[in-house]
């Protein structure tokens, strides 16, 4: 900060050296994540070239295998951006797989009826949590913790055993592939990308998106500006519930069964993806595209471990933890700089 290399163009830009300006840039974490993804991909490419890592399909599989995580993480992005947290994501996903499997398999309803039911149940759960969080001023952490217990418990109330789905509509949907020329995508991956696009539009080009940023930045100022605090907060949690339910449907398609223990701890993966994607956990700053890269990085770790063959699955957890830690420290360095 001592060496002034160029004259400030505007009164606000006190950070004068290039490195300081770079650290102050809000897009930095997203760029870092994107860079990390690229480096990892190239490293994988050079190491497993003879094993077909370079196939376009391997890249597309990242979307296919992580479609549900992407959708869940997009929902979590909104919640975290608004300064809250949603721990119920994994449970809602598990509950949705259970509910759909039960309705399709045991009750015998057609899939077309079941899908809206599941989505509205998830959204309603999110709405309830948002309502309690806003109206009774209880910490989001503890309310969504209750949600975690509730939905996991409801899974077990439906059935203790896993339910395999043999419905023809489900299996044909699950097996449908959309060709892209170089490879193909599953329905789930396409849905996830559409959700991502919609979220991108909503967050950056609508009033609602600006409100989410404003509330996450400073709730008090947002309130004083006259923004509808309650409505926005409740909407954010409703959206997260909806996204979790949709993620549950995609997970159900991916795995074609319902199990009360599906997606245990998935909320941590979703939160980790959001953080690695550069969204500030205190809220108010971040990008949906960053979340996409966060999910891709997590997915790439998994596929590299698969390609490596000798590494065991728990390295995924350790690598995720290390990345999480690194990104939190980078964020901390950024915000500390902004504060001074």
């Amino acid at each position, binding site marked *: 900060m001592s060496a002034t290399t160029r004259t400030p163009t505007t009164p606000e830009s006190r950070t004068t050296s290039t490195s300081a300006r770079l650290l102050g840039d809000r897009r930095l974490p997203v760029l870092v994540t994107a860079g990390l993804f690229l480096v990892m991909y190239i490293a994988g490419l050079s190491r497993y070239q003879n094993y077909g890592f370079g196939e376009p399909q391997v890249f597309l599989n990242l979307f296919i295998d992580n479609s549900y995580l992407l959708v869940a993480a997009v929902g979590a992005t909104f919640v975290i951006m608004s300064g809250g*947290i949603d721990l119920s994501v994994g449970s809602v996903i598990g509950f949705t797989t259970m509910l759909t499997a039960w309705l399709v398999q045991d009750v015998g309803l057609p899939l077309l009826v079941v899908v809206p039911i599941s989505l509205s149940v998830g959204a309603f759960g999110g709405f309830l949590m948002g309502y*309690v969080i806003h*109206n*009774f*001023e*209880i*910490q989001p*952490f*503890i*309310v969504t*913790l*209750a*949600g*975690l*217990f*509730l939905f*996991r*418990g*409801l899974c*077990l*109330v439906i059935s*203790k055993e896993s339910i395999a789905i043999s419905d023809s509509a489900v299996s044909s949907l699950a097996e449908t592939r959309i060709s892209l020329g170089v490879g193909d995508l599953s329905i789930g991956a396409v849905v996830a990308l559409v959700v991502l696009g919609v979220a991108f539009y909503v967050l950056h080009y609508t009033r609602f998106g600006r409100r989410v940023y404003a509330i996450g930045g400073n709730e008090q100022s947002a309130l004083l500006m006259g923004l509808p605090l309650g409505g926005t907060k409740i909407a954010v949690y409703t959206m997260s519930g909806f996204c979790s339910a949709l993620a549950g449907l995609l997970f159900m398609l991916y795995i074609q069964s319902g199990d*009360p223990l599906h997606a245990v701890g998935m909320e*941590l993966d979703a*939160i*980790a993806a959001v*953080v690695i994607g550069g969204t500030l*956990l*205190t809220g108010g700053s971040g990008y949906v595209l960053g979340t996409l890269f966060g999910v891709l990085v997590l997915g790439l770790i998994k596929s590299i471990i698969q390609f490596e063959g000798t590494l*065991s*699955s*728990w*390295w*995924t*957890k*350790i690598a*995720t*933890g*290390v990345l*999480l*830690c690194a990104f*939190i*420290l980078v964020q*901390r360095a950024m915000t*500390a700089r902004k504060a001074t």
Partner: protein
Amino acid sequence: MTTPSRWRALTRHHLFWPVAVLVALLLVNVPFTPDFFAIHMTNGHLYGSLVSIVLFGSPLILVAVGMTLVIATGGIDLSVGAVVAITGALTCSYISHQADQNALSGVLLAMGLGLVAAVVCGLWNGFLVARMGIQPIIATLIIMVAGRGVAQLITDGQIITVNSDPYQLIGGGYWLTLPFSIFVVAAVVAVTVVLTRRTALGLLVEAVGGNAEASRLVGIRSRRIKIMVYVFCAVSAGIAGLMISSNTSAADGNNAGLWIELDAILAVVIGGTSLLGGRFSIGGTVIGALVIQTLTTTIYTIGVPTQTNLVFKAAVVIVVCLLQSPKFRAKVFGARAKSAAPAAPAAPAEAAPKMEVS
């Protein structure tokens, strides 16, 4: 002192509601198992539902007591479950490599190793929270995610079983006719209560939780206090980890202590400690942990399908949190108090004309 005022003083006591819930839950069991409170002696050991509630609840009590202090400083520790798994995994893998698994020195060394690992985890959490200024939820999330991976790395993904009599004592052994773990819990709770209530430590913790910046300005080393509570929490989680792995004589990196962080937070909340920090009650936490364990036992005894356990827990969390929320109380009870006020003898003369106007 008339009876109503004494009653009011009793209901205002901060432990009244947790104890009332615990007693009510215990009484629910009586119609289903008439000899619920009976304790009988078999083979020189005391057996009975009450004994087993304390026995099975002891790891939770330990973790929850540590969590109470962390929450009192305005933080939260999500990593306790992972610490439980790491401690158990490290201790069991060390013991299993011993030639003589029954050698006391080896077992003590193994337990020391496990607890050192717990201290390291606690220091790391404390460092991130106090030095780096990272939100506690996030800082402890790192070990919560990575810790289970580390535990599986230590056990090589297997469930390590040990066959060691001295190690078995902590979690499954008996001493003076009672389960040994009860003594361990009693010792930890007693030490905690003495340290926090007989010295200034408790006050310092509450001061840091109330306002970390203000407490720093009056000369409390708030960072050091924070690091200390995270280390304490990790150590109590480590002891709980020893207990759990000793009780089953096995270390399971995947499932040991799964969800215990959530149960512990729940116990703390039931015990009346505010999640915002600034005040805490160790006694309340112990009762809160016992309430959770009794709830589980009750669900077994009254024959409700065990899978509804989680739904019950969710309901308890929601009710307790709503009751703790000032805004909820103002909305529900405040409305009732307002409508009740005009009915009081002093008010009707003024209340009546207003009714006509509107």
